[in-house]
């Protein structure tokens, strides 16, 4: 197990390093220059470049950047446009996004599991139909469309929720965005849980357990759920990552100061803030790779077969 985990960690760190390197080089070789040519003389630009260390060879710049990064600050650490330091803004935004992300994943998994299990236990009956409709709707309505509707009806028409995100009432105003973000997760998890449960419930070993006299909750917990969980964890993994993308629009719609909104501001404005793109790129990639790593390890814990086969392969 230790060998499996350490191998996975090593691979992830290597991949992350490679991605940061590629991001860095790509951003440094972009044609054009980040300074307003009409307002700065050639001399000033040269001076500014020297100040930011842009005149050194790319590899040396990269080493400098990495050492700064590892010591906890984001490169030159300031926005190209207003000169404000990136780190505090990024941390604040990360916190907001993280909280909403965790809320929606919790929401999506719990409601999804509940719906899926209910549907599987009432296969072919009314509740099963309800679950099917919810999962179809969840897959085909983009989260931001749902968010727009929620905002229109519950904030504008009956003003129950605040129209824009209100950090002073975090939990209350986080309900709508995390609900809409979790819609897709609910749908996918519910559908997968239902199908997996039905498959496992029809399998020979569950029939054996039943014939031994095991029934009800104990049977579900020990035989059905544990085996049905593995594929379910597989669907949750990409969902967590999809959240990042969905959150980008939701944050824009609901005025949440999160990393998604930061990214939109960095790329969709008139000029592109290279330092922000680089910093956010690193943050997103580390999050993504970190989640993937965590899930890989989780598979190993849930399903001993996976870590055993990994051991044989090693």
């Amino acid at each position, binding site marked *: 197990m230790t060998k499996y985990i350490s191998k996975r960690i090593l691979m992830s760190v290597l991949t992350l390093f490679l991605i940061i390197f590629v991001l860095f080089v790509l951003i440094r070789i972009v044609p054009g220059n980040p300074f307003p040519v009409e307002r700065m003389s050639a001399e000033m630009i040269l001076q500014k470049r020297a100040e930011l260390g842009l005149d050194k060879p790319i590899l040396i710049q990269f080493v400098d950047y990495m050492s700064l990064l590892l010591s906890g600050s984001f490169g030159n650490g300031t926005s190209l446009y207003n000169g404000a330091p990136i780190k505090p803004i990024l941390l604040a935004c990360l916190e907001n996004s993280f909280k909403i992300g965790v809320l929606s994943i919790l929401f999506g998994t719990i409601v999804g599991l509940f719906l899926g299990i209910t549907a599987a236990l009432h296969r072919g009956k009314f509740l099963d139909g309800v679950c099917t409709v919810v999962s179809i709707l969840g897959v085909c309505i983009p989260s931001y469309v749902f968010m727009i509707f929620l905002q229109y009806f519950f904030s504008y028409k009956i003003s129950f929720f605040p129209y824009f995100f209100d950090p002073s009432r975090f939990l209350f105003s986080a309900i709508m965005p995390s609900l809409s973000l979790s819609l897709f997760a609910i749908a996918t998890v519910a559908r997968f849980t239902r199908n997996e449960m039905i498959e496992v419930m029809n399998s020979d070993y569950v029939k054996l357990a039943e014939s031994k006299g095991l029934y009800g909750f104990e049977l579900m917990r020990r035989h059905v759920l544990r085996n049905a969980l593995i594929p379910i964890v597989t669907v949750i993994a990409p969902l967590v990552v999809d959240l990042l993308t969905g959150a980008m629009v939701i944050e824009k719609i609901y005025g949440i100061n999160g990393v998604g909104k930061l990214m939109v501001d960095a*790329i969709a404005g008139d000029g592109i803030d290279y330092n922000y793109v680089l910093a956010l790129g690193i943050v997103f990639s580390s999050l993504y790779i970190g989640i993937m790593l965590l899930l890989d390890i989780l598979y190993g814990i849930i399903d001993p077969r996976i870590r055993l086969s990994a051991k044989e392969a090693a």
Partner: protein
Amino acid sequence: MNYVPRKDDFEFVANRNLEIDLNFASQGYWKGVAIHFFKNRIAVAGSIIVSLIILFAIFAPILSSYDYHEIISVNDSTGKEIIARSLEPQIAGDSTDFFADKTFLFGTDDMGRDLWTRTWQGARVSLIIAFVAILIDMIIGTSYGLISGFFGGTVDNILQRFIEIIGSIPTLVIISILAIFMDKGIGLVIASLLITEWIGMSKIARAECLKIKEREYVLASRTLGAGSFHIIFKQILPNTIGPIITQVMFSIPVAIFTEAFLSFVGVGIVLPQCSLGSLIEAGFNNITVLPYQILPPISVLALLMLGFNLIGDGFREALAPKLEDM
């Protein structure tokens, strides 16, 4: 002494009384798939929805009396130009103002353009982007997966590590890098779809290839002297088409969604072009005052996603029919 085959060494198989399953053996593979697909009412409903939207996207902008970027205006009695700004949906003869004789089924937007035409034009742009991007993805992904799966060993190892690295870059980061190098617009949307969507396709092609390459007919083909690429593209590819088409059906809604999402955040389609995403964005900006503007593009988007997902589901079931269905 060499053996020379003679005619009476062989016996014509059809002369023997073979027991052939007449029910299913006489039926071609694709015919079977089609029968299963059309038996599935939900999948048929999905196909109808998608075909209707495609028909409207093709013909509505052509048949409409307005252009999608045309600002509609009339002159009043003093000759002053009046623009049909933000009119609610109306049918000719319905109202009494300057535009009483005109029909705007979905109303007009705040620039005075007909939303009916714009919605279908937007659907057309979104569909074209999705089809083009996914088609190229399919070609790249399938070839990559088949080659990787067929050769195995070192080739497979290198190709798979490459995919692993590309696949672990979040889509958002890829988009932001592209936004640095490219201008906003259709090109950026297609490029980001090209980079992200082929990976899933190649994984499926590789898995199918691994299953098929051990079959006897591939060995037979090899024995007869066929080259690797002949085997990959002539012998294995036709047998992987089914799962790949299913994947395509699921990728198209993803592509449509990605386009809508990019246009919504402002790095996608630029004016005066329009797509479902840019229409939703425009409607969202006016949602509190003119809520009717956002409804048409959102409904078309949701119906398209629904339709393609239903078709994909139906296809997947039709390709792997369970024994009990037969």
